[in-house]
């Protein structure tokens, strides 16, 4: 059962998405900012990270940078951003930091679930074959 870490500071949004993900059968852990996200990451060892960008204490971009620099064991763990920042510059920043996908809020739940499924299965085949650079497969999903 794939494990997803969901980092989001808006409790109302978080609750909804956790419900959906659990209904789909994912094992879900949550955090309300990047800093909590990092400690959850080390404890929970997720297969995929779904994260908001703009959060207090530590934002999603900072968290991702930290993961890519300090925690090489998660270098192939895919990250999907789900942010209310919809400008092109934000999307590009997210992707260039090393995220697989950048979705903008509000998001269609079915689209999100399909994307998570795809990303996880692609990840599985890739880790099954080689431990290649996951960024090579990145797709620009969200934009304005």
């Amino acid at each position, binding site marked *: 059962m794939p494990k997803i870490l969901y980092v989001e500071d*808006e409790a*109302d*949004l978080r609750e*909804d*998405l956790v*419900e*959906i993900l659990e209904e789909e059968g994912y094992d879900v852990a949550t955090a309300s*900012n*990047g800093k909590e996200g990092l400690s959850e990451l080390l404890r929970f060892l997720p297969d995929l990270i779904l994260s908001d960008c*703009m*959060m*207090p*204490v*530590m*934002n999603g971009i*900072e968290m991702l940078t930290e993961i890519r620099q300090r925690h090489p064991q998660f270098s192939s763990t895919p990250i999907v951003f789900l942010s*209310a*920042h*919809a*400008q092109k510059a934000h999307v590009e920043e997210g992707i260039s930091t090393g995220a697989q996908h950048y979705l*903008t*809020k*509000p*998001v*269609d*739940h079915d689209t999100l679930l399909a994307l998570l499924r795809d990303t996880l299965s692609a990840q599985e085949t890739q880790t099954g074959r080689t431990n290649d650079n996951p960024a090579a497969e990145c797709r620009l999903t969200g934009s304005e």
Partner: protein
Amino acid sequence: MAAPGSGGTTPKSAPKPGSRRFLTVSNKLAALGALCISVGFVFVIWIQTDRARAQLYEVALHRNTHTTELIADQLYGPVRWRKPAIVQQVYDSVIANSDLGVVAAITLDRHDALLTVYQKNASNPIDISGFLDDENADPANTGHATTTLHNHFVVIAPVMSRDGLDRAGTIALAWDLSSLDRMSHDMMVQAITVTFGLLAAFITLSLLIVHRYLSQPLAQIAAATNRIANGDKGLEVPWTGRKDEIGDMARSLVTFQENVALIDRLTAEQQQQTQRLANALEKEREYNGLHREFVTMVSHEFRTPVAIIDGAAQRIDRRIGKDTPDQLMERTGKIRNAVNRMIELIDSTLSVSRIEAGTIELELGECDFAALLKDICQRQQEISKHHKISVTVADMPQSIVIDAKRMDQVFTNLLSNAVKYAPDDPKIDVKAGIIGENVVVSVRDSGLGIPKEELPKLFEKFFRASTSTGIPGTGIGLHLVKHLIELHQGSIKVDSIEGQGTTFSVTFPIRQSAHEATTTDADSRPAALSA
């Protein structure tokens, strides 16, 4: 003055005057003049002396010829009868005892045989017999002849009888020429001495005059020019009163000085203008940056509640017939909260436009302020369950006159800020009381704080402190709060220590009756309009 100079425009400092003070133009001119005059004088003196010497010679020749003829007259007898002793006697009495200057004499008889020889200075005899070889001294003549011999002047004369028919012999008298030469030499030396003495006096005087009236003023004007060039603005230029070229030069320098001052002033004004433009541009750029950030944040702030509403709606849709009434209520509650957030955002965004247009007007009415404040705190507490908001209200009158809706906006803003910028520090203190005639409310958090240097900008539109990174916000809340408090004739101030927390203190005057409120409201309106 040299400081603002850049890009090769630094003014050169003028050369130091006086380093070649001796070689001034006027001194060089004077020296050249003196040299020319000296050469001229030497030439003139030389010519004059030469002419004087010739005149001396002529006078001497005339006198000596006469003397020789007189003596020859007296010697006819003794020479005729060949009595050398008598001749010698005549010489001794006439020549030696008189002041005729004769240094030697000889007498010849009619056959040109030597009769007598007279030497005035026997120890240094002068041989003048050689004159016989001279063509000028032809003894056959009846007339006299002159010649110079061994630097001596010799006059030869025939010794004749009174009737002039018989020539008894010849005499020759010699004068020392060196005395004449000495005399003319002395004259020349004297002339030169006097001339050069006068010349020296004249040159000295000329130099003094040139120095006093030309060199010195020129040097002073040059020095003044240097000082002006080096930036001395208050300098008084000398010699402006003179009515000649020096005066013209001095007056030109004054004009130049005035122009320099004018240019300085214009340059300074231009620099100020440039600085003002640069400042305005910088401010504009800053404002544009803030505005861009504001648009980004407003978009984010709208999208977040929309996402909540959309999320809840999708859930309801998917779970039709499965959700319990409680679950449904929870979802609608989320939707309503999100809608409220959007309304607040719309309100504050619109309020800012109204501040700019100056069209915010208070709707004053009696209000239980203590209850209002507690209500606001409670609402915030329900939203932010991690925080602990404590409210203390002391001595508040039952009812004061305010615009309750605007006051609600003010304290909702301050409280939501306190919660938002203290994500890890749950303690929020709200205290309200009366000081004098004023209501004072403080809202304190123990959160991120604001850097000291950013405090003065905190109430500017769109400004967000650097410590707010990652925290959603539009930068208009505090701007609006300040304006609304000022509409209530109040003020807001902020104390903050970065990393330790922030306290906002709101102060506004108490108005207790609606009647008073109406009058005060009338007073406040122009302020509102002009704001």
